[in-house]
């Protein structure tokens, strides 16, 4: 079935959105002058900015359509995929985040080389690049498939070209800053779009049901009893069993997202500190994920109520419920906005992938193997070319996916094959110091083999599915992630006892038992984090002389602060501090890290002019200063 909803006003809204995103990305990316800026935005951002930008990574191109369909069929339990991530939080917050941040790794493969060895890194590079470039193509393809029935003026491929052009341009020229800032806007848009749809849907229900019923009452009474519950049946229905969703989503998709998604890792490496990253992930999982769960499925819930009250046309099905509800409750202009939100969901997924491909291409292939020892300016230029190249390669995949559905399925199978071994290597790498390079290599190799075998002979999973009383065949796919994680863990443990582990001295800062060493290496001195000081406002004073500290893992400017102000910070000579523009809503866009040195007048902080310029701070104005480590 085809829909013809687009009015001129809807097109104007959509075109306006494209122009705004291009302008926004270019504006915020114009200061990108180094690879650190291009990939990690100079590690300067506040928690709320990163949290907001992450929502649009979670919500993909097909989320509104997929979860509206699930919400229509199974009710509020559609949220269960979004509401079980908290179980992974300890490992991410206390393990993975501090390890990647303090060790200053730039990519997952780089972590694999430092934690394991070079062959493991190379294998990870191959796996991850194929997966990510294929994913760019799949996202472009699914977006075209989603948009074509709504606005058939453009073909699936033409939609993919339009979106690839806009995304590729701001990613290539603006880097991570442009990606983060545009993702913040896109996250707000897609959350807002979902809530606007629900609000309009409730209004619609209020107008179509008896006058004594408000929109909310109609909504609650219109949902069947089973649709009101937070979980579906444990093993039924076979298409959406709670136990299957739990294993597939939590131990498959969510683990891959939090522990092996290069885009997410780069997002958290862009925070100003580990503490800020932790705040961000807490806010994301506790506040924003539930909001996203409601936003993407709301149209399906409203659609179910419409069906209960006989207000839904006969041709409406779960598959097209999002479009039907949108058409019924919106007016021209608002429809265009909802459409723009759908596009936003896609673009924000793709931009993270493009930036991540460029990061791996530069940091794991080009810099170490192709062109060693070149200037940072050269690598930055190449990163921009790699971003455009990744977009183009993804676009080339679209006609392939369109013609050969087996390629699409092959990519899905490949993703399934690499996910469990990579997840297993990351998690055991974090937690177990005995887990060696050779063990990791064999886990990737043999684990991938077992995964492919399970795709060819799915009956391998049947005994595990049967433990939950699921019929052979019905719930097998849901238990694949669980089955493969068990297999990969068994291979990893057996190989770890067979091969000699790496000496502990070479694992400092790379596993969870060496956090103190990680902080020491990051700072270059003993960490000072036993006391939290105040955040204080000081006047920024510029000095002509370049004064920098090269003790730590990166060069930082010295910031001179009086002894009295340092006491308020609970800071000591040599501590890492952070100076930010006093306007909180900039989220760290104008800021820099510095090494504390005691001296000078009270109420003032003195920094070399050159560094002030790189942090985009304004001399003579107050800055907020805080101790980091």
């Amino acid at each position, binding site marked *: 079935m085809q829909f013809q909803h687009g009015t001129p006003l809807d097109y104007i809204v959509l075109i306006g959105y494209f122009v705004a995103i291009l302008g926004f990305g270019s504006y915020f990316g114009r200061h990108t002058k180094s690879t650190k800026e291009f990939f990690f935005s100079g590690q300067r951002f506040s928690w709320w900015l990163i949290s907001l930008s992450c929502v649009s990574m979670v919500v993909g191109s097909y989320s509104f359509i997929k979860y509206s369909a699930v919400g229509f069929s199974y009710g509020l339990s559609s949220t269960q995929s979004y509401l079980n991530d908290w*179980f992974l*939080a*300890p490992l991410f917050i*206390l*393990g993975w985040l*501090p390890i990647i941040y303090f060790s200053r790794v730039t990519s997952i493969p780089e972590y694999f080389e430092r934690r394991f060895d070079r062959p493991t890194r190379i294998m990870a590079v191959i796996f991850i690049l194929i997966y990510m470039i294929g994913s760019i193509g799949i996202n472009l393809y699914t977006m075209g498939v989603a948009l074509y029935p709504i606005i058939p003026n453009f073909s699936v491929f033409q939609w993919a070209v339009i979106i690839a052009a806009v995304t590729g341009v701001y990613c290539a020229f603006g880097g991570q800053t442009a990606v983060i800032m545009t993702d913040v806007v896109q996250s707000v848009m897609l959350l807002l779009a979902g809530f606007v749809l629900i609000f309009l849907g409730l209004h619609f229900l209020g107008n179509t049901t008896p006058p004594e019923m408000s929109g909310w009452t109609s909504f609650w009474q219109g949902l069947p009893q089973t649709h009101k519950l*937070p*979980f579906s*049946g444990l093993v039924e229905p076979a298409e959406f069993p709670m136990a299957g969703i*739990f294993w597939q989503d939590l131990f498959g998709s969510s683990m891959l997202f939090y522990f092996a998604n290069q885009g997410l890792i780069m997002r958290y490496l862009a925070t100003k500190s580990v503490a800020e990253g932790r705040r961000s992930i807490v806010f994301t999982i506790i506040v924003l994920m539930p909001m996203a769960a409601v936003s993407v499925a709301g149209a399906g819930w409203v659609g179910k109520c419409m069906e209960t009250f006989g207000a839904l046309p006969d041709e409406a099905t779960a598959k097209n419920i999002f479009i039907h509800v949108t058409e019924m409750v919106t007016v021209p202009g608002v429809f265009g906005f909802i459409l723009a939100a759908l596009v936003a969901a896609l673009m924000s997924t793709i931009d993270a992938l493009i930036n991540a491909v460029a990061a791996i291409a530069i940091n794991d292939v080009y810099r170490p193997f192709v062109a060693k020892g070149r200037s940072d300016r050269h690598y930055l230029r190449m990163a921009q070319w790699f971003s455009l190249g990744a977009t183009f390669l993804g676009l080339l995949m679209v006609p392939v996916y369109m013609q050969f559905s087996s390629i699409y399925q092959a990519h899905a199978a490949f993703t399934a094959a690499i996910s469990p071994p990579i997840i297993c290597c990351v998690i055991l790498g974090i937690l177990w110091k005995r887990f060696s390079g050779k063990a990791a290599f064999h886990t990737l190799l043999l684990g991938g083999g077992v995964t492919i075998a399970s795709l060819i002979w799915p009956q391998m999973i049947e005994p595990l599915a049967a433990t939950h009383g699921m019929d052979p065949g019905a719930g097998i796919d849901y238990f694949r992630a669980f089955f493969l994680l068990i297999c990969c863990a068994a291979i990893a443990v057996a190989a770890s006892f067979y091969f000699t582990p790496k000496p502990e001295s070479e694992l400092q800062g790379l596993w969870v038992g060496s956090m103190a060493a990680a902080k020491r290496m990051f700072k270059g001195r003993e960490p000072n984090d036993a006391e939290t000081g105040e955040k204080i406002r000081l006047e920024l004073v510029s000095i002509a002389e370049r004064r920098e500290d090269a003790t730590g893992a990166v060069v930082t400017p010295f910031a001179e602060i009086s002894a009295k102000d340092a006491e308020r910070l609970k800071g000591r000579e040599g501590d890492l501090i952070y100076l930010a523009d006093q306007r909180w809503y900039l989220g760290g866009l104008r800021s820099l890290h510095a090494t504390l040195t005691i001296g000078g007048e009270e109420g003032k902080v003195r920094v070399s002019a050159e560094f002030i310029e790189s942090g985009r701070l304004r001399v003579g104005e107050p800055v907020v200063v805080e101790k980091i480590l």
Partner: protein
Amino acid sequence: MNWVQLAYQYGIGGAFFLITLFLCTRPGTADWNTPSDRRSIVWLIAGLVGYFIMHVIWILLAS
């Protein structure tokens, strides 16, 4: 009702949560004496309890 599903999710998920929390707070890892680590541990436990309470209330309201 959803009580079996609730027990399943919080039984298995909760066990994974507590084991990883234990492994990440052993000596040499996150430190209770460091304010940032302490805040994170408190938030982690509060978040788990919060999610659990939310699901319980949700089931009761839907019943």
